[in-house]
């Protein structure tokens, strides 16, 4: 794979360094991993897209309950299939990198949690979020009563303007006070 490093032009490498929180090595590693995901015939394509199913086979994402959401949020594809180009992939890694700011992390976290893409976290979003967090199996699921209680508590705490939903600013307000959000909102290749 020695040639893959040289596939990334120097200009764009420095531009990517400028535009992401990644270091040169990380970008090169990301590029290598990305090209590994591509099929043989796709490598010559100027701006190849990797479908979501393939992205999700990455071990770093495989057991993440938000994996499809992450792909959808970072995808720039027109038909919303969650497929990623290399630049999208870099965006993803940058937002999840060690040195990314709280602001950008919380912004993307909000969009990941906003399952229906309507700009606020409403009741159904929160419910889906809880279900993601408690896993697939039946025995870890919360009962509907518990769920209701939980969501009410969350809205009580973080819905400052009392409109029944959590919007971005409220979300960031909550997140910015959390001691360990930045350290856990990380994905490294």
């Amino acid at each position: 794979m020695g040639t893959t490093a040289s596939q990334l032009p120097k200009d764009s490498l420095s531009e990517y360094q400028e535009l992401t929180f990644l270091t040169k090595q990380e970008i090169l590693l990301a590029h290598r991993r990305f090209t590994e995901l591509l099929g043989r015939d796709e490598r010559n394509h100027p701006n190849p897209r990797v479908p979501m199913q393939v992205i999700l086979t990455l071990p770093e994402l495989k057991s993440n309950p938000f994996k499809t959401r992450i792909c959808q949020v970072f995808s720039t594809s027109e038909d919303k299939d969650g497929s990623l180009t290399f630049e999208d992939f870099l965006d993803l890694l940058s937002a999840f990198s060690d040195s990314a700011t709280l602001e950008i992390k919380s912004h993307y976290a909000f969009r990941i949690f906003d399952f229906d893409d309507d700009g606020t976290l409403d009741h159904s979003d929160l419910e889906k979020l809880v279900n993601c967090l408690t896993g697939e199996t039946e025995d870890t699921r919360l009962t509907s009563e518990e769920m209701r209680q939980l969501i009410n508590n969350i809205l009580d705490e973080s819905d400052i303007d009392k409109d029944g939903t959590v919007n971005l600013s409220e979300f960031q307000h909550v997140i910015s006070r959390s001691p360990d959000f930045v350290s856990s909102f990380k994905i490294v290749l």
Partner: protein
Amino acid sequence: MPGDTLITSENDTDIELDFAGDEDFQENHEREKHKGKRRNGDRQKNERENQRRKRPSKLVQGIREESQSKTERRERSRRRRRRAEHETSIHEGNERERDQTRAKSTKSKKNIKNEKTRKLEGKEDGEAQERSGKGKLKLVCAKNEEKIESGDQLKEKEKALGVKKKKKKRRKKVVETSSEPETSEEGDDEEEVNNDGEVRPELLSPEELEKLKDAVDEKKKLIQSLRGKPWPMKQKLVTLRESQLFVEKYEGALGKGKGRKLYAYKVMMTKKWMKFQRDFENFKTACIPWEMKIKEIESHFGSSVASYFIFLRWMYGINMILFGLTFGLVMVPEALMGRPYGSIPRKTVPRAEEAGAMDFAVLWDFGGYAQYSVLFYGYYNNQRAIGWFKFRMPLSYFLVGVGTVAYSYMVVIRTMARNANESGIGDDNSFNFSWKMFTSWDYLIGNPETADNKFASITTSFKEAILEEQESRKDDNIHLTRFLRVLANFLVLCCLAGSGYLIYFVVRRSQKFALDGLENHTWWERNEVNMVMSLLGMFCPMLFDVISTLENYHPRVALQWQLGRIFALFLGNLYTFIIALMDAINLKRKEEKVVKYNITMWEASLYNGTGSENSTAPPITIHPADVPRGPCWETMVGQEFVRLIISDTMTTYITLLIGDFLRAVLVRFLNHCWCWDLEAGFPSYSEFDVSGNVLGLIFNQGMIWMGAFYAPCLPALNLLRLHVSMYLQCWAVMCCNVPQERVFKASGSNNFYMAMLLVILFLSTLPAIYTIVTIPPSFDCGPFSGKNRMFDVIQETLESDFPAWFSKVFSYASNPGLVLPFILLMVLAIYYLQSTSKSYKEANVELKKKLQMQNEENKKKNKQAALKAQMDLEEARKSASQTAEHQRNNNASVQRREDDEEIDNKNQRMYHGRNPSLSAGDREPQFSARGPGPRNGHNGNHGNPRYLPGFRQQSEPRMCRVPSLERH
């Protein structure tokens, strides 16, 4: 104006848009209502006008008025904006293109959803307006409005920067906009710029130059902050290239003549410097050792296990420095420039030990040749200066000893302060549930098993939190719990006391053995102390773990108790060891006195014997190995510590191999032929014990700090140990441990470990300092031999190596009359700083309280407002349905209350254009048929933007400000 305004106000825009969306919804809502009512058309306009003056005072009126004034306001500002826009469009030229670019940038800059709604709105607007015949200008307005709204926010932010700058920025943005989409427009752009008369440097006035400079700086700032923007890469790339182009283009234009050259040079240098910095950063991250290993572990086991390895690496770094200091400034100079081995008694193995000095068993115990080498204190000579450049060996030895401790203190405290800074705010509990929800997932987890554990732990934490919330947990059998807890603590205390006594007993016994002579005893008896300490350190935590199940604490609390107990155990053991060592030192010193006396006797006899025979003969040379010597307690202490470290390391590794590896192998392969499931049942695989390992590491470090003064080889040994640990534990964790059942997150306890390290550092320097200060050094070994106290070396250096005035000054400075006030001053300063920090903390708490109060008040207000709005709406709906049911006259009277002509006109046109067949009667029931459930939610939505303090009210003056700026 895409470009900066929207870029910098990105976040605000999103927020604002929620409200904007609500407003628009509301507006539509109103509009629809109007449609229903305004079937009578223009005919009634005049009538309405008249009626408005004598409006009946109804409750309905309130809400109407609200919306009225709002639409009025909106319309006003829109008009103004349109005017402004007109101006700018003249100023710029091609309007359509502008429209295009704006649409484009709008698309890219907001998140998808907002964009969708906006599009929808735009479409709606457009529809209506097309019908009304006004065309696209209004569309532009509608879009522009939002943009200006977001622009407003920026202006709010940058108010301080002054209007001039904004003016400039706008101009710049205009330039940029036109150059954005089509590169073929370059010429156009150029032309335009020339029209403005700004870009050619010769034509620029200094004022404008200043502005341009500002613009360029602005762009540079933008380039730097670009990575912090949540946009897709494509957009970032476009913006970056654009801004770079802009900067490059106009940077050269700045400055004239010499200044220009200098400026260009400066720019070039900053560019180079940036590049260098970036490369250096890359280099630095490439230099961090074990990064990939730790990341691999991180992705398998989550951040808590990885935090141990990061801690280990940090420790390794510190030990590297300590090792560098002792190795470079003490060991190497002595080995290279000091007298060679065998030249003086202290550097020679005594005759009695010579036979077995090279045996492995002896060397393993750090006796024989190892004892008489640079590894230990006793080998060093008290020669004041060694080598050709007069290296002050004793001074260096002393200063390195002090320096290692000082450096460790500095590093630990600095790290603690930094950690505290990072997590200082996260102490309030007001977002308990939200944090559990939004931040509990550890995105690093890449192992399905860990993920399953995490799911389970999150679920239990949710359930616990709900349970705790529901009732403040009334324990039905509180007496039993209390009794069990007391019992558990009693048992733990017994364990601690027992282990302390055991160590004391063993150390005492070993002294007896030592007096008898070690050769007569077995290996076990010789290594009893270390083995007992290591075994205690291994088994007591397990015992504590069993005991703590009695207590039935919350796992987090239980973990803290466990840590505290292990800490107490280790500390107790260490101090018992030190006390026993002190006893040993005293014994040695008694022995030393005897030896000293014997030596003088021996020397006297020697000289007497020779003197009687031949007084002029040169003194007989006795081989240094034959010279009798003192016991040298310092070397003994050093040896003890080194042995302790070695045995500790060995136990750790052996436990690792047996407890983790062998267990894993057995479980794995015996599982096929066993009566129960070994993997799921009793032995199973072991978990990685983060807290225990961290504690072990901390205590190990404490021993290093304690013993490093007497055994300069300790940091080197520790470095080796840490290095091996890193690989061995990484391997063990990856191959034979399973992820923890309860996955804790790392960051919370980071400073806890650091605090423990600090305590240990303090406790371990205490005995070392005590021995240095109070006990006189041995008379015939070590760099300080012959001195009364070890620190006399400083006095000596001052007297002989520095000019006289310096020592005079120093002696004045060390005068108690000066030192005491100085200490007093420091104490006062500490007191002052402490009290100020306390008052800051209090102020912080106060402010937090205030914020909470305000929050609650706002909530109350909002609730009231929402309630009121709901009532109003209810009323309005009632009256509206009345109007729908009754005749049109009624309808008209409601309509009469409606306001401003313009909005009426517009709405009516819209109504006409829309669906004329839809009567009011059809529409109203539809509304009420939606039922009260969803409506309530919407009411909340309606109430908010209007009643939320600081949103609606603020936006009005801002809107007014926009056009005046736009005109420039």
